[in-house]
């Protein structure tokens, strides 16, 4: 059975051209970029070339890019690094309630250290209201953090407006762009951001490498201290093959993104329409228009998400759910709950995310098997979609 992968938001496979670009840096050209000798300096050149590619892709200066081990590290670095370095100026941070756990948990950690955190609400589509950002400002505010687009429901956030509010208030603005880089244009100038997190493995690069854009002049503390790599902002021997792979991935995205996004939007809409037409009791989660080209998220009434995902897996289809029966809290997705969904609907969520190797045939196959899975599970459920209890 052919595997159909519809979980690109979780991770994507590395592009064969990315793997090819990385290959020499494991053995033939393995030097430490900090070494003085030629072997090391060749590696230094490769790291700097990748840095230039990423900087060009997001419209930043080359020296404004710091490589990290992941998007999670980039978010931790941005939030803790700004908080710690600017504590004398204030202790208040504004963050949306639908951020990735990497950001939310960093803020909860900072809360324990005495920082005051405001969590912004979202509307039914999962969008932050710039007005609420403005209203949350305090004289002690030092930082605000709102993601570019949400990883679960795909809704784009009004980052340009939020960035302008931050700029006017003299507050740093961090944006988590892990889900958007390579899908839509990301430009740090246009977005008014001071810090921006990205990760390679979401755009066909390798796992284990991310980056944080830090606008020149920003006051920030490093998380890792050591040998002074990354201009003292992130000590650690550079992940040479990973960084080279990230550069290659960004280069490919630069040439393919426009057409690819258009193609994915078509497939996405075909999938949404198909699910809504073929199955009763569906709610589309996330914004109908302002959403990532590759994201579909629906709640299916009277079924639980994990059981749908397991059934799809049995059919060779990889998907994901916001039902978190495996998490120790047992609480469903914080994103769906923040959007005002009932726990039942949040537990019945199914996320399908598309990518480079998704075809129309994959969508058709999904639409062929999903209705049967849902009706089989509903037949087993003590609840019925009409709201009446089953006998």
């Amino acid at each position, binding site marked *: 059975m052919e595997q159909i992968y519809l979980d690109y938001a979780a991770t994507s496979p590395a592009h064969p051209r990315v793997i090819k670009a990385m290959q020499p840096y494991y053995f033939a050209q393995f030097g430490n970029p900090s070494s003085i000798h030629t072997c090391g300096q060749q590696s230094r050149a490769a790291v700097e070339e990748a840095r230039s590619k990423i900087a060009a892709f997001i419209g930043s200066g080359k020296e404004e890019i710091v490589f990290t081990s992941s998007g999670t590290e980039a978010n931790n670095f941005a939030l803790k690094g700004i908080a710690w370095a600017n504590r004398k100026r204030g202790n208040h941070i504004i963050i949306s309630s639908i951020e990735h756990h990497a950001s939310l948990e960093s803020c909860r950690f900072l809360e324990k250290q005495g920082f005051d955190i405001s969590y912004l609400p979202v509307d039914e589509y999962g969008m932050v209201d710039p007005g609420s950002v403005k209203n949350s400002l305090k004289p002690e505010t030092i930082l605000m953090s709102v993601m570019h687009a949400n990883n679960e429901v795909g809704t784009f956030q009004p980052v340009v407006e939020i960035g302008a509010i931050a700029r006017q208030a003299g507050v740093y603005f961090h944006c988590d762009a892990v889900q958007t880089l390579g899908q839509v244009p990301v430009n740090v100038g246009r977005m008014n951001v001071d810090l921006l997190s990205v990760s390679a493995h979401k755009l066909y690069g390798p796992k284990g490498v991310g980056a944080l854009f830090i606008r020149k002049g920003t006051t920030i503390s490093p998380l890792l201290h050591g040998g002074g790599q990354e201009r003292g902002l992130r000590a650690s021997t550079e992940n040479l093959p990973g960084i080279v792979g990230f550069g290659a991935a960004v280069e490919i995205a630069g040439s393919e993104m426009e057409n690819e996004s258009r193609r994915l939007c078509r497939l996405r809409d075909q999938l949404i329409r198909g699910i809504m037409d073929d199955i009763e009791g569906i709610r589309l989660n996330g914004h109908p228009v302002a959403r990532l080209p590759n994201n579909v998220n629906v709640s299916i009434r009277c079924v639980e998400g994990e*059981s749908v995902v397991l059934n799809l897996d049995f059919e060779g289809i990889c998907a994901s759910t916001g039902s978190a029966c495996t998490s120790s809290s047992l609480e469903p997705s914080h994103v769906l709950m923040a959007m005002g969904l009932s*726990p039942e609907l949040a537990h019945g969520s199914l996320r399908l995310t598309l990518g480079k190797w998704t075809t129309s045939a994959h969508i058709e196959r999904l639409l062929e098997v999903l209705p049967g899975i849902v009706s089989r599970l509903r*037949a*087993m*459920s003590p609840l019925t979609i009409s709201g009446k209890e089953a006998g």
Partner: protein
Amino acid sequence: MGEVNSLYSEQVMDHFHNPRNAGGMENPDGTGRVGNPICGDIMELYIRVNNGIITEARFKTLGCGAAIATSSMVTEMVRGLPIEEALQISNKAVAEALGGLPSVKMHCSMLAEEALKAAIEDYYHKCGHVNTV
């Protein structure tokens, strides 16, 4: 896929994909409904009792793989058992019969034990039995 790289054991996946005794029951002698929508699982268990012996058990469950598999397994385990013995079935026994559950899923097996106890209690109640579970 399958046994090698699965979140669940082979037995769990078998009961999940081929649930035994799934569906409602006409005029059950006892019905137990447990769980809540907040945690995502609702389990309804129906029993038929004859001369103090559970002759049939069926279920309807809204829930994850572990919830469906434990529902299926508990209906198999109680069939033919005297009520007193059925009351001894623990969530651990259900999980063990399924070849174990991931630790984060053990709470789902609690649901099976609780649903069974609730169904028996309902049966006691219906026949005016003085005992409670």
